[in-house]
């Protein structure tokens, strides 16, 4: 457990911050601008990856920049827990940047420079949140993350987007104020806010009433971004943002920073023993259980695909909080492992939703009957990811849910295990109709089976499918490059969505459905989800989670 | 009842201070005419000056100019302070009157409420 003073944590944070002026400077040449984003993303992954072996071996990289406020230093520390979130965010940023290029150019959105610059800024602050060494530095990056992501939420500049932006600001800054109060209380109680694995010792002796108040404030403050039930309603409204934003930020970076905050508070500020003494673990787990059940029920009734995914995120995040709240070794491991697991799966789902929106402008599930014909690869990835969400074995979701289940049973709180299983069933209930409709129904009448009707492997030559799209696109080039041919005439008016008059026209299985900019990331994240499920040990995430658990002294 | 009479008899000067200050404040706040407000401000300041001067009184004291054969002097400090305060008072009144003249030349009235209405109109 040796501390290595190195500039790498700071470099990891600053690399995308440095990219911002370059992105803004090259706003006239989109390709160069996207080049800067990709370069920054790859550089960030390289820096973070270079620290992973060291962290696994037990040492910690520290960049100390002197005292920021009396008694509190502005310190960045890449320890195991920080590495878990940092590695995840930087890795997925590479995939999301690729996807954003496809998405932005597919819809030729306005204000793309502002979009990419804010994206780089929000990643810089997300890594800052990951590597913060004390509550004050964490709070600084937590607030900057809100500021950096606000332009992304209000990107569409429509009245609805502005309202969502205002709501987002109000909720997250409100959470920020709660976190600040909690931090001040902790600083007042113990004289320090530095993260010490297993909790700050002085907190145990501190006066329990104020310690409970501090925990409640911190949990509520971070809970806003972790979308715990009473404070969650900003997340579905933030779906008005472009889909890559919903994907990376509202499934990975922003919401995970909230959950990560709760993990820091639970493991490194209060520590499991003090939480057990103060008896704050149970209410936290109770709120999480309530959230994951009610969010799944609400998700059932949502017709807009992205809103349904948003409520699914709200419920899945509570899996993690539940894992942390149950306070037993395996449950904590499960909760922490669910962070990467959920990230990969939810990212795939959002990417699929985005691809469907870009290609066919359909957002509502009721219009998506038989879309499997039009976008087979996307919908297969969607099916795989949603199976993982439900916790079907051999997929990422199952591994982390399994740990949480064992943990809650071992610690004698079986009621949470039941809640998890019920939520798993609800997951199936709201994902399966989407998948079934896509493949086993056709737009006209719902009993005709497109899968049976259109032969696997597609047909050859223009005359192949009799339902050639009547709207003049004519030459469906077999090489799959949809290129410039813009079948639906992208007029940017409201979501009329739905299949074209002649039903979904047939696109081959070899990616004819969308540009590879989008299909690549979808398949990459889907295969990531599968790989995490099939061989969790191979991936570095499980080992990081185990080191975290050992540091905290919960297991082994 | 005797306490009030006794205060009136022995400490009439402090009573005068209170009366002046109260009158001054009332004029500044109560009156609508701008010039009357400036007069009120002056009254208020004079009341305070009077307070300073009365505190400087020494029984049988001689005016604070050194002369042979005189021991007890009235304490000179409040007098000096009030000299400066009077200068400040005069300059404030001068600036206030200049502003009043300028406002009058623009709005044609000295009534503060009418001016407020006119201000909100244009």
């Amino acid at each position, binding site marked *: 457990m040796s501390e290595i003073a190195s500039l790498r944590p700071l470099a990891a944070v600053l690399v995308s911050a440095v990219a911002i002026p370059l992105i803004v400077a090259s706003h006239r040449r989109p390709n160069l601008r996207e080049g800067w984003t990709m370069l920054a993303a790859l550089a960030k992954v390289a820096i973070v990856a270079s620290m992973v072996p060291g962290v696994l071996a037990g040492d910690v990289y520290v960049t100390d920049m*002197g*005292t*920021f*406020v*009396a008694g509190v230093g*502005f310190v960045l520390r890449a320890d195991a827990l920080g590495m878990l979130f940092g590695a995840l965010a930087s890795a997925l940023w590479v995939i999301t940047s690729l996807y954003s290029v496809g998405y932005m150019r597919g819809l030729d959105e306005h204000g793309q420079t*502002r979009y990419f610059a804010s994206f780089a800024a929000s990643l810089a602050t997300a890594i800052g949140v990951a590597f913060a060494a004390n509550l*004050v530095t964490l*709070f*600084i990056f937590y*607030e*900057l993350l809100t*500021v950096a992501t606000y*332009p992304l939420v*209000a990107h569409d*500049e429509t009245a609805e*987007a*502005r309202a969502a*932006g*205002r709501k987002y*600001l*109000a909720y997250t*800054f*409100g959470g*920020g*104020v709660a976190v*600040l*109060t909690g931090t*001040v*209380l902790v*600083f*007042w109680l113990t004289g320090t806010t530095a993260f010490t694995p297993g909790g700050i010792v002085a907190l145990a002796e501190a006066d329990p009433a104020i310690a409970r108040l501090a925990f409640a404030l911190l949990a509520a403050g971070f809970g806003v971004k972790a979308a715990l039930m009473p404070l969650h309603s900003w997340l579905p409204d933030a779906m008005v943002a472009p889909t890559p934003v919903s994907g990376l930020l509202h499934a990975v970076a922003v919401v995970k920073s909230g959950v990560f905050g709760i993990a820091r508070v639970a493991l490194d500020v209060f520590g499991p023993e003090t939480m057990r003494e103060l008896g704050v673990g149970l209410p936290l787990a109770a709120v999480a259980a309530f959230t994951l059940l009610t969010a799944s029920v609400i998700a059932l009734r949502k017709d807009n695909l992205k809103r349904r995914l948003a409520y699914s995120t709200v419920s899945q995040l509570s899996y993690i909080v539940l894992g942390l709240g149950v306070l037993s070794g395996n449950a904590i491991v499960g909760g922490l492992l669910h962070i990467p697991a959920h990230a990969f799966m939810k990212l795939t789902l959002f990417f699929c939703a985005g691809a469907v929106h870009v290609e066919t402008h359909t957002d509502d599930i009721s219009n998506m009957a038989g879309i499997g014909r039009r976008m087979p690869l996307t919908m297969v990835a969607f099916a795989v990811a949603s199976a993982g969400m439900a916790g079907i074995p051999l997929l990422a979701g199952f591994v982390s849910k399994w740990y949480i289940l064992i943990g809650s049973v071992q610690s004698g709180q079986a009621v949470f295990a039941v809640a998890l299983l019920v939520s798993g069933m609800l997951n199936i209930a709201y994902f399966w109709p989407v998948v079934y409709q896509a493949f086993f129904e056709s737009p006209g009448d719902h009993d005709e089976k497109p899968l049976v009707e259109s032969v696997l492997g597609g047909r050859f030559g223009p005359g192949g499918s009799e339902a050639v799209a009547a709207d003049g696109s004519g030459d469906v080039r077999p090489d799959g490059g949809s290129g410039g041919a813009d079948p639906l005439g992208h007029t940017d008016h409201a979501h009329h969505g739905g299949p074209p008059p002649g039903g979904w026209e047939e696109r081959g299985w070899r990616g004819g459905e969308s540009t590879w900019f989008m299909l690549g990331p979808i398949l990459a994240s889907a295969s990531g989800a599968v790989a995490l499920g099939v061989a969790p040990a191979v991936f570095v995430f499980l080992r990081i989670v185990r080191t975290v658990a050992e540091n905290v002294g919960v297991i082994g | 009842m005797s306490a009030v009479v006794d205060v009136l008899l022995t400490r009439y000067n402090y009573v005068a201070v209170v009366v002046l*200050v109260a009158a001054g*404040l009332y004029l*500044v706040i109560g009156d609508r005419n*701008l010039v009357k407000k*400036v007069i009120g*401000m002056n009254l*208020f*300041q004079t009341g*305070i000056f009077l*307070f*300073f001067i009365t*505190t400087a009184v020494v029984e049988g004291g001689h005016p604070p100019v050194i002369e042979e054969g005189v021991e007890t002097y009235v304490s000179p*400090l*409040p007098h000096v*302070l009030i000299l*400066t*305060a009077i200068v*400040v008072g005069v*300059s*404030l009144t001068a*600036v*206030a009157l200049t*502003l*009043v003249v*300028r*406002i009058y030349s623009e709005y044609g009235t000295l009534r503060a409420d009418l*001016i407020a209405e006119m*201000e909100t109109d244009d």
Partner: protein
Amino acid sequence: MTDAIVLAVVFPILAAVASLLAGLRWDRSGWYVAALAAVVELGLAVSILLSVLQGGRTAYELGGFVPPAGIELVADGLSAPVLVLVATVSLAVLAYARRAGPRGNAFYTVYLLLVAGLAGVILTGDIFNMYVFLEITGLAAYALVASGDDVRSAVAALKYLLLGTIGASLFLLGAGYAYVATGTLNMVDLAARFAEVGYTSRPVLASFGLIVTGLLVKVALFPVHSWQPDAYATAPDSVSAYISALVSTVSAYVVAGSVLAVTQSELKRMLAYSSVSQFGMIVAAFALLSPTAAVGGVVHLLGHAVIKGGLFAAAGVVARQTGARTVEEYAGLASRRPVSAGLVAVLALALVGVPPAVGFVGKWYIVLGAIESGAPVVAAVILASTLLTLAYVARVIERMYFADVPAVEAGGERAAVAADGGESTAADTGVGEESPVSPAMIAVVVLAAFAAVALGFAGTAIQSLLEPTLQGVFGT
């Protein structure tokens, strides 16, 4: 060198007279005299700060009289940084006023008198002397506010004058009672004598009450704050930038102002009400009587001066560039004027208290001090004020970045030049037809934005500077 303390007060007066004399011969020389004087003043202020850093509290007796009798000028950990702030901001505003501000020599004479008055109030150790300098500052401020060319600034100046004089006279009466109770006017001596006389004796209580009410009126606390927003909003841009940053720095305001700020449509008036709220926090910080809260108060005092001065200057720049004065007219500003919009956004976020800008540091200390001295209500109010400030700041940022550009656009441009052209006197045409905004003005705003963030990291430096003074005050 201790003479610097006296020179810091006397020199601006001399410069004011020099600018008046220069006015007789060259009619537009005022600005150069003022700029020179401000640079020298800054030099003096920095030398005083250095001498305080080495020698700790340095006192200077006027006329060689021993302190309790004579008037004493004192420079210590608290007054030296504030003096440096006064000098830097007056230099910055001069750069800003190079094109935006009024021209005549009389304006610069009054401006220098204001600097002299502020230096005097900061440095004086004698309570009556404080009254005199307070009045000098007041008088100069009334004249500056009245220098706006439309008559509404004259009405605002009169309202400001009446209330300011009442406040100062109450302060004088309080000083009188203090003198009666203890027989001395020197502040340090007063503190000791108050202890002897006993804090519960009637005149001492009366003096404390009167002094506090007098300063609160001058500070325009919530119940009596009507003069301040009018004075800010109607005064010409450079003057309001100066006043908001400086005169209010010397006195402080109450939190409820931010509620009023939200209802305002005109930007400068909104910023004025936000000053009412930000200074309320500083009053609360000092009222807590805990050393950490006092440090927080000073840090927030310095931080707010930089941020609010920068915001007013930026509002002035935007007004001259696009004629936009109300929040609605700021729609789509980011696409028209990206640089100014960016600056306004950075300064506004610093005002809300987003870390690591200086707004946050001050708040951190104040909240910590409030909790330490067991005043949860104050802590809650200060934390809530972050959200209140956010309410009116988010509105501006949203209008700038996410509202669509209004159709009539070109008209706004020319109107801006015409409206502001009128403000500067006829002699301006000699300058030739550059853009209405000089690079110096943008430089001032950029400097303010940079300082707002850089100061954030100077929190501990300010605290170490204040340590000796607080030791003396709180005896902790």
